[in-house]
């Protein structure tokens, strides 16, 4: 019996090792989109239809740890609104209604960007990863991974994810809904050195797969360390934030 157990364990080892490797890859790729210390950055979203810019907006983003994000809409049609993410929970605050409203990660922030695309960038926490092979993507040698939602707060049911070997930069992600529909693609296009980190993702393109010709470009800028009181990440404090 002991021998059978040992054989079983030995046979399982490659699968366990593969799973650990896949998760380690995702963890390292998360580092390119998250920073160890609390920070603030500007974010610009521009919507395109048939490669023509249609509209856009700018946001101010405060991030603390890997599970707290506060987004302020500083221009555009929803100027003055806030989106708060804490762990699996999300709220939108519309100054006119003076009330934080509980929202879901899949709800739209703007254009092709869902709230979760901005606020939930920690894939290693939300998804189980499996290594599916290796592929070359625009000249980058990548691991291809399949991510399955682990956390109830994960924005998508399944993600096909390409991570560049060596740098661990995420290069592409294909997102699938619970229904199995191929929903959208993210191309992680630009990484830059910032004052307090070696590399940070500064440009992502989100392509709508349900309605061809539509895409949203997300650009990050003015990334700087910023620590704010913890109450800023309490949903009850949202009505007190500057409009």
């Amino acid at each position, binding site marked *: 019996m002991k021998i059978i157990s040992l054989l079983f364990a030995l046979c399982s080892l490659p699968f366990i090792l593969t799973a650990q490797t896949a998760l380690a890859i995702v963890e390292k790729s998360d580092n390119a989109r998250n920073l160890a210390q609390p920070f603030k950055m500007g974010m610009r979203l521009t*919507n395109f*239809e048939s490669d023509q810019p*249609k*509209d*856009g*907006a700018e946001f101010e983003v405060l991030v603390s740890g890997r599970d707290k994000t506060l987004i302020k809409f500083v*221009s*555009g*049609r929803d*100027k*003055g609104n806030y989106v708060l993410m*804490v762990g*699996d*929970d*999300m709220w939108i605050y*519309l*100054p*006119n*209604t*003076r*009330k934080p*409203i*509980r*929202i*879901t*990660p*899949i*709800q*739209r922030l703007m*254009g092709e960007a*869902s709230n*979760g695309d901005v606020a939930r960038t920690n894939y290693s926490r939300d998804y189980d990863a499996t290594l599916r092979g290796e592929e070359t993507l625009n000249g980058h040698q990548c691991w291809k991974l399949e991510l399955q*939602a682990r956390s*109830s*707060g*994960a*924005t*998508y*049911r399944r993600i096909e994810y390409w991570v560049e070997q060596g740098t661990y930069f995420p290069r592409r992600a294909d997102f699938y*809904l*619970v*229904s199995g*529909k191929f*929903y959208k693609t993210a191309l992680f296009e630009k990484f830059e050195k910032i004052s307090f980190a070696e590399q940070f993702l500064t440009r992502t393109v989100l392509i709508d797969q*349900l309605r061809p010709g*539509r895409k949203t470009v997300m650009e990050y800028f003015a990334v700087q360390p910023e620590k704010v*009181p*913890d*109450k800023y990440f*309490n*949903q*009850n*404090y949202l*009505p*007190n934030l*500057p*409009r």
Partner: protein
Amino acid sequence: MKIISYLLLFLLTAAANLFAQHADLSGVLFNEAAYFDFAQASLYNPHNRLLHLYNRSNVLAAEVNANLRFTAWFSMQSTLQTRLESARTSESKLLWRELFVKLAPASALDLTFGRAILKWGAGYAYNPTGVIEPRRNPSDTSDRLRRFSGLDLAQADFYFRASALTLVYLNTLQTGHRWQFANDHRLALRMSTRWRGFEVALIGFWEKLRRGKIGFNFTKVLGTALEIHGEFLGQRGTDAPQHLIVAVNAPDTLFRFPPFAPLYARQRRLFGQYLAGFQYTFGGKINLAMEYFHNDESMGGKDWRRFLDYLLFANRQLSNPRWTTPQGHLAAANLLWATGVFSNTGATRDYLFVRLYSADLAATRISGELNVLENLHDASAVVIPTLSVYLGREISAYMRWSGFCGKRQSEFGGLLYRSVTNIGMAWKF
């Protein structure tokens, strides 16, 4: 009042220039025109004979929000609005919707003094646990014309991790001939926390010489696209004024005074307001919200039918000279008083609210919304489609149509209008 408002505005501007470390200014300028199609068969205002309403109106308003931070622990917020409302005549107003100072003596403690809008309900169209906020209008959930103003209060907020405790003392500041407090002391308490994805708030409310109320609300997200929420507020007995027809056996009655009284004030049974709702996002693009609302303080099905019969009787008596009094015609007065049921408790006990919203209808610059509010006792409904077009980064225009459907003897079929069309434009700056 206007002089004092201008003086406050001057002082605020001076303070911002002289002392503020940080000042955020934002605002909105909007205009909305409304066109009314009167219901000739309205139960309350047949052929527009009683109210002589004008069939057009316009609201032009500008609102400025200022957030001034003087030190890390002392800040001030204000929302000043000036509006010009025109129908047959015009009226201009200048009002401070909010004006309060905020002190933060400790990082987890905030103190607020002044006029502020607080919203505690979890619901979208109804807010039973919003004990210190204006009753929400389910046909205009976002208060698009920004009519709500804050309450005069002193508030303490304690924040600890995922929880918050809020204590509010309210006393209305009367700004008429002489400024004075109304001494209508009220106290409200909310304890809010998050646990396993549930956001739960317990709420208590006490009012001088009136009964206390307690309740709770919750929200929870299930998966990536579904949110559920609920609210309950209860009290023993109720002070809410009821239409006296519910206590009169004969609907062919006309009253000589406004027929409202707190009929259930001496009862000890539980009067509750219940809300259950959800919202679901389809394919990340279309959002569906539904809510069921029940209010024990309003009229039940039997009472409502009697009330409608009473309205029909009053309508039939409009041309009967027997009811003419020196103050006017009694049947007409009864019909006008009857509209009070909407402002007191809401007409009937059970409603269903449905909202369908797409921020991206046909093109990224066009959003569409459809709201339906149905009275579950008589199956009447108001249907409100809205189309919004974004003309620039901060300019939007919209068209909204409200259609009132149902038999004449029903809530929405018997109202003053068959339809209302609103066309508006807003510029955020």
